[in-house]
């Protein structure tokens, strides 16, 4: 009997229903628009076109949400002259998912120039998304000119300090972090002492079996420091999360999907809904990357995340807009 065909978990070191080889295989499927769910210790994959009925216990995890990022409303250069149009396409994609996500995370750079009308336009477009609740963290483009005052007024209710907060959904603990304020010359993203202290306290009393999802704009791992793609003090934050069996880190900022698994932590960056950026080091600078118009939607995308209660690892699937 061929083990390979059955995709059974062979080495479940963390006893969380997933092994590294299986997880990486799942990630590879993600590029083809596959959908992975971990159920009863076995990875099952479904292609998006063959998903079982919505709400069927067989296919759907218990918690489903979507991450979008870097909508850059107000950007109008050749890399994408219609960022409102591509954001609408992302909403259509979300509305077309057979397991309707419960809510959305926006990992920042909502606006391009922190202008009120840019935020208004995004709010308007997202109103037509089926998931009504949206949780935001700011990107550096959202806190221009006013040290984030406008962002906090719009999206920061109930948040602490520079806009950090946490909430729980179906036993999963979500933490929104802000790493785009008080940036220092020559530096990377930064969380700062106050936020780190808050984080330590926030997760201190949680059981180590609680799945954690951390979301922040700039990657919390060192993707490419030369381009500022990293966070100076993220190691401290991750130290506070070391005890947890499942930590999923969702970031944006780099306008391309990237993932890394390190022990119990899965790092994942989302595509932008506005424009792509070059792969690390593949261009002079990390600016907007022009692609032929007919290819644009294929390099923009959303991220769908599913969690099955009882299994600790989350299934994270990217799908492009075309």
């Amino acid at each position, binding site marked *: 009997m061929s083990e390979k065909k059955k995709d059974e978990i062979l080495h479940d070191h963390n006893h969380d229903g997933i092994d590294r080889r299986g997880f990486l295989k799942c990630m590879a499927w993600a590029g083809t628009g596959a959908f992975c769910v971990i159920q009863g210790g076995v990875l099952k994959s479904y292609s998006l076109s063959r998903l079982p009925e919505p709400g069927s216990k067989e296919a759907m995890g218990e918690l489903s949400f979507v991450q979008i990022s870097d909508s850059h409303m107000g950007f109008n*250069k*050749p890399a994408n002259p219609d960022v409102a149009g591509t954001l609408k396409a992302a909403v259509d994609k979300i509305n077309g998912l057979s397991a309707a996500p419960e809510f959305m995370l926006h990992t920042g750079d909502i606006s391009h*120039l922190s202008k009120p009308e840019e935020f208004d336009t995004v709010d308007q477009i997202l109103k037509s998304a089926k998931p009504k609740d949206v949780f935001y963290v700011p990107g*550096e*483009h959202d806190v221009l*000119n006013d040290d984030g005052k406008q962002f906090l007024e719009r999206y920061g209710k109930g948040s602490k300090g520079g806009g950090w907060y946490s909430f729980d959904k179906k036993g999963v603990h979500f933490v929104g972090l802000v790493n785009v304020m008080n*940036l220092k*010359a020559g530096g990377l993203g930064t969380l700062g002492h106050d936020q780190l202290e808050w984080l330590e306290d926030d997760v201190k009393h949680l059981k180590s079996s609680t799945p954690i999802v951390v979301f922040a704009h700039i990657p919390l791992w060192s993707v490419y420091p*030369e381009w500022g793609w990293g966070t100076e003090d993220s190691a401290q934050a991750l130290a506070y999360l070391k005890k947890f069996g499942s930590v999923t880190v969702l970031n944006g900022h780099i306008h391309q999907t990237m993932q890394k698994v390190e022990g119990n932590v899965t790092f994942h960056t989302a595509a932008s809904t506005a424009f792509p950026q070059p792969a690390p080091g593949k261009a002079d600078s990390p*600016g907007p990357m022009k692609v032929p118009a007919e290819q644009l939607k294929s390099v923009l995308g959303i991220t769908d995340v599913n969690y099955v209660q009882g299994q600790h690892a989350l299934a994270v699937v990217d799908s492009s807009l075309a």
Partner: protein
Amino acid sequence: MRRSVFTACLGATLMLGMGALGVIQKSFVASAQQKMESMEVKIDNFTFGPAALTVPVGTTVTWTNKDDIPHTVVSTDEPKAFKSKVLDTDEKFSFTFSKAGSYPYFCSIHPKMTGKVIVQ
């Protein structure tokens, strides 16, 4: 030489001389003006160009954003010597350096972008 020719020559020489003086004067004034005119820094490809700029006291430096992404020009000193608003493509920021010194700055949106103005 005939007197009239002499006069004409003298006149021509004088006029040439004065013309030359005038040109010299103009160029003197022009170079002095250039010293007090704007010195330019071009922002493009996530870089300040030139990254290090030396200017005499009293110079106005103008940064122009030629990149397709917004940038800022913010002094790294505390208190900040200067701080631009967000500059979108083709927008400019100017600052007149009235005191000698070294003025490091960066883009507060993309902090890896750094530059320096040295005022002598």
